[in-house]
Protein backbone atom coordinates (compact mmCIF):
# COMPACT_ATOMS: atom_id res chain seq x y z
CA UNK A 1 0.00 0.00 0.00
CA UNK A 2 0.99 3.67 -0.43
CA UNK A 3 1.52 5.96 2.57
CA UNK A 4 2.48 9.62 2.69
CA UNK A 5 5.03 10.39 5.42
CA UNK A 6 5.56 13.95 6.68
CA UNK A 7 8.30 15.34 8.92
CA UNK A 8 7.75 18.74 10.47
CA UNK A 9 9.88 21.43 12.10
CA UNK A 10 13.21 20.14 13.45
CA UNK A 11 12.52 16.62 12.16
CA UNK A 12 12.21 17.94 8.59
CA UNK A 13 15.62 19.56 9.02
CA UNK A 14 17.12 16.50 10.60
CA UNK A 15 16.05 14.18 7.81
CA UNK A 16 16.41 16.76 5.04
CA UNK A 17 12.91 16.23 3.76
CA UNK A 18 9.38 17.23 4.59
CA UNK A 19 7.39 14.65 2.74
CA UNK A 20 7.95 11.26 1.16
CA UNK A 21 5.60 8.72 -0.40
CA UNK A 22 6.45 5.15 0.48
CA UNK A 23 5.31 1.64 -0.31
CA UNK A 24 4.53 -0.07 2.98
CA UNK A 25 3.32 -3.51 3.96
CA UNK A 26 -0.37 -3.81 4.77
CA UNK A 27 -1.13 -3.18 8.47
CA UNK A 28 2.19 -1.49 9.16
CA UNK A 29 2.25 0.82 12.21
CA UNK A 30 3.31 4.47 12.35
CA UNK A 31 6.55 3.55 14.11
CA UNK A 32 7.34 0.85 11.60
CA UNK A 33 6.98 3.39 8.80
CA UNK A 34 9.27 5.74 10.74
CA UNK A 35 11.90 2.99 10.92
CA UNK A 36 11.48 2.22 7.24
CA UNK A 37 11.84 5.84 6.12
CA UNK A 38 14.62 6.89 8.52
CA UNK A 39 16.71 3.77 7.97
CA UNK A 40 16.10 2.55 11.48
CA UNK A 41 16.72 5.78 13.43
CA UNK A 42 15.48 5.73 17.02
CA UNK A 43 12.34 7.82 17.37
CA UNK A 44 12.94 10.57 19.99
CA UNK A 45 10.70 9.78 22.97
CA UNK A 46 8.87 13.11 22.73
CA UNK A 47 7.98 12.64 19.05
CA UNK A 48 4.30 13.21 18.27
CA UNK A 49 2.42 11.29 15.62
CA UNK A 50 -0.62 12.32 13.58
CA UNK A 51 -2.48 10.13 11.11
CA UNK A 52 -4.61 12.00 8.59
CA UNK A 53 -4.07 15.18 10.62
CA UNK A 54 -5.35 13.68 13.90
CA UNK A 55 -3.13 12.78 16.83
CA UNK A 56 -2.52 9.02 17.02
CA UNK A 57 -0.43 6.55 18.98
CA UNK A 58 2.83 5.47 17.34
CA UNK A 59 1.64 1.86 17.38
CA UNK A 60 -1.45 2.60 15.31
CA UNK A 61 -1.77 0.74 12.03
CA UNK A 62 -1.95 2.63 8.76
CA UNK A 63 -4.25 2.07 5.82
CA UNK A 64 -3.63 2.58 2.14
CA UNK A 65 -3.56 6.28 1.26
CA UNK A 66 -2.99 7.46 4.85
CA UNK A 67 -0.86 10.46 5.69
CA UNK A 68 1.33 9.95 8.75
CA UNK A 69 3.19 12.91 10.27
CA UNK A 70 6.01 12.99 12.83
CA UNK A 71 6.83 16.12 14.74
CA UNK A 72 8.47 17.43 17.92
CA UNK A 73 6.54 18.93 20.88
CA UNK A 74 4.51 21.89 19.73
CA UNK A 75 5.52 25.43 20.68
CA UNK A 76 2.84 27.73 19.30
CA UNK A 77 0.88 30.52 20.96
Amino acid sequence: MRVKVKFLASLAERFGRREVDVNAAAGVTAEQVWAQVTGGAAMPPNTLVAINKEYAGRGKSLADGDEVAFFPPVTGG
Partner: protein
Amino acid sequence: MKIEVREQPFEPWTEVAAYERKALKPGACGAAAVFVGTMRDMSGDDRVQAMRLEHYAGMTEKHLARIAEEAMRRWPVNDALILHRVGDLKPGDPIVLVAAWSAHRADAFAACRFLIEDLKSRAPFWKKEQLEAGVRWVEENTPG
Protein backbone atom coordinates in the same frame (compact mmCIF):
# COMPACT_ATOMS: atom_id res chain seq x y z
CA MET B 1 -16.78 31.14 15.41
CA LYS B 2 -13.71 32.01 13.41
CA ILE B 3 -10.37 30.23 13.10
CA GLU B 4 -7.58 31.72 11.05
CA VAL B 5 -3.89 31.06 10.47
CA ARG B 6 -2.30 34.12 8.92
CA GLU B 7 1.00 34.72 7.14
CA GLN B 8 0.79 38.50 7.53
CA PRO B 9 1.18 40.63 10.68
CA PHE B 10 -2.09 41.50 12.39
CA GLU B 11 -3.26 44.08 14.89
CA PRO B 12 -5.16 41.99 17.48
CA TRP B 13 -7.47 44.66 18.89
CA THR B 14 -8.60 45.72 15.43
CA GLU B 15 -9.37 42.06 14.73
CA VAL B 16 -11.43 41.68 17.89
CA ALA B 17 -13.36 44.87 17.17
CA ALA B 18 -14.02 43.84 13.56
CA TYR B 19 -15.16 40.37 14.57
CA GLU B 20 -17.50 41.73 17.23
CA ARG B 21 -19.08 44.13 14.75
CA LYS B 22 -19.52 41.40 12.19
CA ALA B 23 -20.54 38.38 14.26
CA LEU B 24 -21.97 39.45 17.59
CA LYS B 25 -25.32 40.88 18.46
CA PRO B 26 -24.85 43.99 20.63
CA GLY B 27 -26.33 43.46 24.07
CA ALA B 28 -26.35 39.66 23.89
CA CYS B 29 -22.97 39.01 25.51
CA GLY B 30 -22.11 40.58 28.80
CA ALA B 31 -18.53 39.39 28.85
CA ALA B 32 -15.56 39.15 26.52
CA ALA B 33 -12.26 37.62 27.61
CA VAL B 34 -9.32 38.02 25.28
CA PHE B 35 -5.76 36.79 25.37
CA VAL B 36 -3.02 38.07 23.09
CA GLY B 37 0.42 36.52 22.94
CA THR B 38 3.19 38.66 21.51
CA MET B 39 6.70 37.81 20.41
CA ARG B 40 9.12 38.84 23.16
CA ASP B 41 12.59 40.20 22.48
CA MET B 42 14.06 37.84 25.10
CA SER B 43 14.00 34.05 25.30
CA GLY B 44 15.35 33.02 28.67
CA ASP B 45 18.53 35.12 28.89
CA ASP B 46 19.02 35.43 25.13
CA ARG B 47 18.03 38.34 22.96
CA VAL B 48 15.84 37.19 20.07
CA GLN B 49 16.21 39.00 16.77
CA ALA B 50 13.56 37.23 14.74
CA MET B 51 11.42 34.12 14.76
CA ARG B 52 10.01 31.74 12.21
CA LEU B 53 6.70 30.08 12.99
CA GLU B 54 6.05 26.85 11.15
CA HIS B 55 2.84 24.85 11.27
CA TYR B 56 1.24 21.71 9.92
CA ALA B 57 -1.13 23.24 7.37
CA GLY B 58 -4.47 21.47 7.39
CA MET B 59 -4.02 19.85 10.78
CA THR B 60 -3.68 23.25 12.45
CA GLU B 61 -7.02 24.58 11.25
CA LYS B 62 -8.73 21.27 12.03
CA HIS B 63 -7.29 21.21 15.54
CA LEU B 64 -8.13 24.84 16.29
CA ALA B 65 -11.70 24.44 15.05
CA ARG B 66 -12.07 21.41 17.29
CA ILE B 67 -10.90 23.20 20.43
CA ALA B 68 -13.13 26.19 19.67
CA GLU B 69 -16.08 23.81 19.30
CA GLU B 70 -15.10 22.08 22.51
CA ALA B 71 -14.96 25.40 24.37
CA MET B 72 -18.43 26.27 23.09
CA ARG B 73 -19.72 22.87 24.20
CA ARG B 74 -18.14 22.95 27.66
CA TRP B 75 -19.14 26.49 28.59
CA PRO B 76 -22.16 28.61 27.64
CA VAL B 77 -20.07 30.61 25.21
CA ASN B 78 -21.76 32.59 22.45
CA ASP B 79 -18.75 32.84 20.19
CA ALA B 80 -15.02 32.29 19.92
CA LEU B 81 -12.21 33.64 17.78
CA ILE B 82 -8.73 32.19 17.26
CA LEU B 83 -6.15 33.88 15.06
CA HIS B 84 -2.56 32.62 14.86
CA ARG B 85 0.37 34.02 12.97
CA VAL B 86 2.83 31.91 10.98
CA GLY B 87 5.90 32.81 8.91
CA ASP B 88 8.61 35.32 9.82
CA LEU B 89 8.05 37.44 12.90
CA LYS B 90 9.85 40.31 14.61
CA PRO B 91 9.87 41.03 18.37
CA GLY B 92 6.67 42.84 19.30
CA ASP B 93 4.63 41.08 16.61
CA PRO B 94 1.40 39.53 17.87
CA ILE B 95 1.54 35.73 17.61
CA VAL B 96 -1.85 34.62 18.81
CA LEU B 97 -5.24 36.02 19.67
CA VAL B 98 -7.95 33.99 21.40
CA ALA B 99 -11.28 35.45 22.46
CA ALA B 100 -14.43 34.09 24.04
CA TRP B 101 -17.77 35.83 24.43
CA SER B 102 -20.37 34.80 26.96
CA ALA B 103 -23.24 36.14 29.03
CA HIS B 104 -21.13 35.86 32.18
CA ARG B 105 -17.51 36.55 33.01
CA ALA B 106 -16.62 33.24 34.66
CA ASP B 107 -17.52 31.34 31.49
CA ALA B 108 -15.74 33.81 29.21
CA PHE B 109 -12.55 33.56 31.29
CA ALA B 110 -12.69 29.76 31.56
CA ALA B 111 -13.23 29.32 27.83
CA CYS B 112 -10.50 31.81 26.91
CA ARG B 113 -8.04 30.14 29.25
CA PHE B 114 -8.94 26.71 27.90
CA LEU B 115 -8.45 27.86 24.31
CA ILE B 116 -4.96 29.22 24.86
CA GLU B 117 -3.86 26.30 27.05
CA ASP B 118 -4.99 23.70 24.55
CA LEU B 119 -3.58 25.67 21.64
CA LYS B 120 -0.20 25.94 23.32
CA SER B 121 -0.02 22.30 24.33
CA ARG B 122 -1.62 20.61 21.30
CA ALA B 123 -1.89 22.79 18.17
CA PRO B 124 0.85 21.96 15.62
CA PHE B 125 2.96 25.12 15.57
CA TRP B 126 6.72 25.34 16.06
CA LYS B 127 8.93 28.31 16.81
CA LYS B 128 12.45 28.73 15.54
CA GLU B 129 14.35 31.61 17.08
CA GLN B 130 17.07 33.71 15.50
CA LEU B 131 19.49 34.65 18.28
CA GLU B 132 22.78 36.50 18.01
CA ALA B 133 24.54 33.16 18.38
CA GLY B 134 22.50 31.48 15.67
CA VAL B 135 19.24 29.71 15.11
CA ARG B 136 17.43 27.31 17.46
CA TRP B 137 14.12 25.51 17.64
CA VAL B 138 12.14 26.22 20.80
CA GLU B 139 11.86 22.82 22.42
CA GLU B 140 8.91 23.14 24.74
CA ASN B 141 6.26 25.60 25.79
CA THR B 142 6.15 26.81 29.36
CA PRO B 143 3.20 25.45 31.35
CA GLY B 144 0.23 27.80 31.76
